[in-house]
């Protein structure tokens, strides 16, 4: 029975909701105000604001979510809904290097399973996990629009294309 079922990523595990929202420096607040000013409706600014909070805090932690909800006049669950839709937005802490392996058709056909296997073996973790030293997180994502150079993955904001298992070794070894 259990082999026939895949556990869905646990999307809403209990979080401890802080009483106070996150706070940011005056410069960041000004940047946020700049984004809010662009839209007639506050909630439209949700994505740029999420990126800022993520940049500042590493991921959308409960205090950050609360901050966004207050700032956008939304409820925390609205923030959660959007945050979990995008693989670029993290709702859990990620490592220094976030390896996002494309698992969509072109990449899959051209060898994604081998790439994933190599990455995971080398780091000793499974997709969705972070190494114990906090350096690497591996996740599987949908098409990154680089099908012509499949298979590929993205580490933080950099593309690595035409991957082979050997190339994976080289890339990972060369990271500072």
């Amino acid at each position, binding site marked *: 029975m259990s*082999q*026939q*079922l*895949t*556990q*869905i*990523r646990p*999307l*809403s*595990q*209990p*979080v401890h*909701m802080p009483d106070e929202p996150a706070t940011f420096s005056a410069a960041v607040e000004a940047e946020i105000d700049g984004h809010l000013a662009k839209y007639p409706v506050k909630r439209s600014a949700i994505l740029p604001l999420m990126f800022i909070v993520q940049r500042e805090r590493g991921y959308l932690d*409960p205090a950050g*979510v609360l901050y966004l909800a207050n700032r956008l006049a*939304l*409820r*925390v*669950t*609205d*923030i*959660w*809904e959007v945050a*979990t*839709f*995008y693989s670029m937005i993290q709702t859990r802490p990620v490592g220094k290097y976030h390896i996002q392996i494309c698992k969509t058709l072109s990449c899959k056909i051209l060898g994604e399973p081998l790439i994933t296997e190599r990455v995971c073996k080398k780091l000793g973790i499974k997709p969705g996990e972070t190494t114990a030293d906090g350096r690497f997180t591996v996740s599987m994502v949908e098409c990154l629009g680089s099908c012509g150079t499949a298979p590929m993955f993205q580490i933080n904001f950099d593309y690595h294309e035409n991957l082979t298992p050997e190339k994976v070794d080289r890339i990972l070894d060369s990271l500072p």
Partner: protein
Amino acid sequence: MTQDVIKVTINNKDIQVPKGARLIEVCRDSGFDIPSFCYYSDLALQASCRMCLVRIEKMPKLQTSCTITCTDGMVVTTQSEEIEKAQRAMVEFLLANHPLDCPVCDRGGECELQEMAFDWGGLEERFTEKKNYYAERYLSPMVANDPQRCILCKRCTRVCDEWMGEDAIEAGGRGANTVIGTYGGWLDCSQCGNCIEVCPTGTLLDATYRHQARPWELAQTVSTCTYCSDGCQMSLGARGGELMRVVARDRYVNGLNGEFLCIKGRFGHPFVNHEARIRTPMIRYKKGGKLIPATWDDAIRHVASKLDSIANKHGRNSIGIVGSPRLTNEALYLLKKFATDLIGTDNYAVTDSVNLTPFFANLGAPLATHRDIRYAKTIVLIGGEPEELQPLTGKQIRQAVRNGGARLIIFNSVPIRLREQASQFIHIRPGAEEAAVLALAGGATDSLVSRKMGIETAELEKVRGTINETEGDLIIMFDGSLSAAAQSALAQLSYLLRADNRRVLFHPLPLYNNSIGALDMGMTNGAIDVTQMLDAAGRGIRAVCVAGSFLPEQLRGREESLAKLDFLMVQELFETDTTSFADVVLPAASFAEIDGTFTNNDGFVQRVRQSIPPVNQSKADWMITDQLARELGVEFGFGMSASAVFNEIAMQVPGYAGLRYPLLKDESKPVQVKHDIAVQRDISNELETVRTAVEQMDESPEKHNDTPDVGHELFKIRTLTDKVAQFHLLAAGNPRPESLNVSPLYQITLSDDLRAEAVVAGD
């Protein structure tokens, strides 16, 4: 208003429809069944389930009829091989990740997916991949969740947003991994349970009824809610004399509320079979002694002889008769008749905290129905907090604004949640509600009114401007904060505010399920009110018979009054502050055990139907009165028939003329009482009284700046909600348990402090 009519052809049948009609509705009304999951009338369109496909000529692909607005000359086919193939494929898709274990699912037997699978499903599952799996869990004390059964129709997220304005439940994740849930896994909301109701599958489930019964074992009885004055229609599901659950599913009941219910209506029913229900009649033979169980005959005889001797000794007016606004019209009518015709006392009253008599005496326009509210153009709300006290009204207002573009003007000293919907929220000083009536009546007093309210004069001009621009319905709502003079003036303002293209309707906001009925039955026009009666206890008033209990706020500061009475008889479900002074306690039957009618704030007379036999030895309140009358030598002659009492009501109470139970049979076509419409008259005296009162108003009270928490009224523990364990958790702040997989009831034991905080004692 005339509507343009266009012609569409469906399956070769020509049909005239109003312009703008939705194709799926038109097909269904014309007898062509269209399967659907995500379509829900009067909610935002979703078009995610693709079950409602039809072929429309000149359009390239099959179309979702739920999103199509009919246009003139449209030619539609609803059944063909092509369509059936597409629909069968859709069901196969929906079942790909759905567990096929209906026998262990609480929704089994009344599941829309199950039914659809019977009609459109294949015999065999071709999908052999792994199924998505997610453990069952609790989202709150009221809502259980089995995420893997979800078909992502998003009805729940839409009702949460559009009906309740809460956005408490949303869809997280993406694609096949989308899951309905909340941030942090815990549902912090008003716990209305409407998401459970509209869920077509077993994904969202009633946690209080979980694994208690199967739907086909339940006898479903259509009845009216016993909590607030909105009068939602509901279906009581009973098995073996026990009320198992309350739903508003449209397969069982189709009332003014649709599938809407609030937390009290849906989850507030376990008091019915609660073990604390009074079991037998009881007599206290000696003041200060114990209540001793007795037979009905002995108890009634005891009451009769006491009333007899007190009337002989102190006169008939020394006996007070009191009824609760929760009783049926039948019970209240008979109480009044008992008081005036049999006892012959002028001292009868209802334990309501709001008295709308002056309003109804001057009523210049009919009451608005909930449907009128939904389609109103402008709504003026003076005081009140419908979301907490009349939740269906709250929902109708929100939909009128969000889906109908109505303008909402709120006068309130508290920034209630509904202000998010308001086009104009006028934040007034506490106690200044009266002054709103002056503002509506004209600009002469604006400077006084704005000063007392603590607002700009321009705000008041804006209100009148909005009203003057209104074409369509203008609905004025108000709560119990208005004085008699203000109520009378307001009731006449319809003559002033109406116009050729504008209809004025009223929607009073009383607090109890039968507040309006009590008024109609004449229980409110006794010589004194309840507090005066309590104050006169031991002097003018020697004996009191009460059906129900006094409210805590009525007893506050009058704790001694009841002890001063020579004799107190109480008809109750539970022991209360009032019964602790009673000389005779008689067990009354709850709304689920009796037949009768309630009149709601629309003026609709709606049926209450017996679902289970009376619990313990209880009897319907009207039967108790009837029996007492018989003992006192008067035969009312109603036998065992509530409908006979109602027939007499129809003869005696003008607005109810001609009504009979059979005419009230169909809950989807409720009958409105014809309240007398008073002719227009000069209201300058009333306005002057209001003006003087406003002039004397204190300008010191501060406005409240905090929006009250969701549920601050709904979750209050009162006599009835006290009997529902889950309400205690909510009243204590809805703490999230350690594990979401086990019911919070088994994980959280409230400390005595919290419990004390939760209990505010009852009405």
